[in-house]
């Protein structure tokens, strides 16, 4: 394994294990599985009460959105906690490839997000009579994969901001909750006021969820490829911005000796 690949894979796994208390299975279950389970149930029942859409709308929206829990919070912690725990200086003192350090952290969170999302769909199948056609499941997996990657990219951006901001977790929480409102998770994007809908269309998740809903309704993957490409491009834009900020803040931190200053 080359050094860069080792930094990417081993560094990412160690970062995931080190920065999270989720190594404790009980904590992982309550945070990463329990909370999404009840979020899906809550919004599906709220949808039944409101009568705005059918169950499937809320199940697909929320089961894909819960992947953002790993993507947003996970990536934010994965990057910003280096500063909080005092490990940022030694990390940036190494000659390791920065892109490998940075992107390696994303891999565990992508896998985790896909797992949480799959768990959400499983719960919906078990408790809410959600049963998409078996043939649509591989396409749904592709949609979840693309959407989770773009959510992780947004998390990277917030994490990079956390290399400079004082309270980045406030931002991460706010973004996570706002995604429930503007990304078409519980309200169709075209039912939102124009400006809110426009914000949603610039964020990860919106196009991915729309693709997921169409796939569940029976549309073939080829027909939603445009939505998924848009979702992937949005993710790529956020990831690029995140890496650029990471390098800018690293350079600024060295220049001003303020890497771990709050």
């Amino acid at each position, binding site marked *: 394994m080359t050094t860069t690949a080792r930094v990417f894979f081993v560094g990412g796994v160690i970062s995931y294990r080190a920065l999270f208390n989720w190594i404790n299975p*009980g904590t992982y279950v309550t945070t990463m599985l329990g*909370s999404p389970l*009840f979020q899906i149930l809550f919004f599906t029942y*709220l949808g*039944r009460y*409101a*009568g*705005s859409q059918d169950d499937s709308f809320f199940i697909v929206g929320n089961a894909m959105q819960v992947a953002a829990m790993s993507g947003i919070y996970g990536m934010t912690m994965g990057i910003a906690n280096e500063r909080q725990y005092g490990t940022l200086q030694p990390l940036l003192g190494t000659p390791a490839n920065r892109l490998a350090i940075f992107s390696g952290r994303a891999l565990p969170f992508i896998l985790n997000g896909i797992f949480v999302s799959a768990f959400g769909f499983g719960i919906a199948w078990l408790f809410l009579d959600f049963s998409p056609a078996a043939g649509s499941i591989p396409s749904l997996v592709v949609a979840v994969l693309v959407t989770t990657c773009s959510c992780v990219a947004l998390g990277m951006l917030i994490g990079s901001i956390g290399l400079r901001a004082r309270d980045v977790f406030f931002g991460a929480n706010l973004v996570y909750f706002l995604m429930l*409102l503007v990304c078409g998770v519980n309200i169709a994007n075209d039912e939102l006021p124009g400006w809110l809908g426009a914000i949603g269309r610039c964020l990860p998740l919106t196009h991915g969820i729309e693709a997921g809903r169409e796939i569940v309704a029976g549309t073939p993957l080829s027909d939603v490829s445009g939505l998924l490409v848009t979702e992937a491009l949005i993710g790529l834009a956020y990831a690029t911005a995140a890496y650029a900020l990471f390098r800018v803040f690293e350079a600024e931190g060295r220049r001003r000796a303020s890497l771990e200053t709050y």
Partner: protein
Amino acid sequence: MSVRLFWIGWLFHLKGLTNSLFFVLVSVLQPIIFASIAFFMVESGNQSGTLLYVALGAGLMGVWSATLFGSGGAIQWQRWQGTLELLVGAPPPFVAVLLPLTVATATLGLYSILATLLWGRIFFGSSLDFAHPVQLAVALPTTILSLGMLGLLLASTFVLYRHANAFSNLLEYPVWLVTGLLVPLSLLPGWVGPISWVLAPTWGMRAIRDAAFGGNAWPEIALCAGLGVVYVVLGSIALRNFERLARDRATLSLT
């Protein structure tokens, strides 16, 4: 002495909490976001006559979140800050020191109710006509107080769990759901009913809605207050047990 202790403790913690960005998020921004989601959903489902119903429910969701996160980790926070030994060692019973803190976290939730009512009024045209203002004026503080007392029970039991914050994350949505804050209990499976009866937010929400929409809120207010007393009794027992064990094992300051 006890009244002064409660008042000073409540005020001190309330001021501290309002300086926390996290609690601003939990008690103001998050309820507004959830209220907006619910407003859009009921409007889309042509249930626009329920906007005040939704505003009150979303507000009480914020009260529960503030109580859950504020009280659930209260003892752990004191531990991390190194003030737990001082509080336990102080002459008043520990329960009298902790109760103002947990009631303060619930009180912070008043922001939620105000925020969602004003948000609904300004941006969604929700009415603010309350059928029984006097009953509402009693129901609101009673609900806040009994949630604070429920917070005491949470604080005294969560301390046994090392990762209480994760447990708090788990309990946010289920209690919103089973206490009927936004979704009527009639839509949920029958076995949810008995669970909802032992949770003060259920009766607090019913009392507030009866006061707002024209029912008789007094029985629910009484039930809410009665449950609050039960929580204090149970919380006191759990706290005494925690204090005894911590002294025996010398684990009071261990995180």
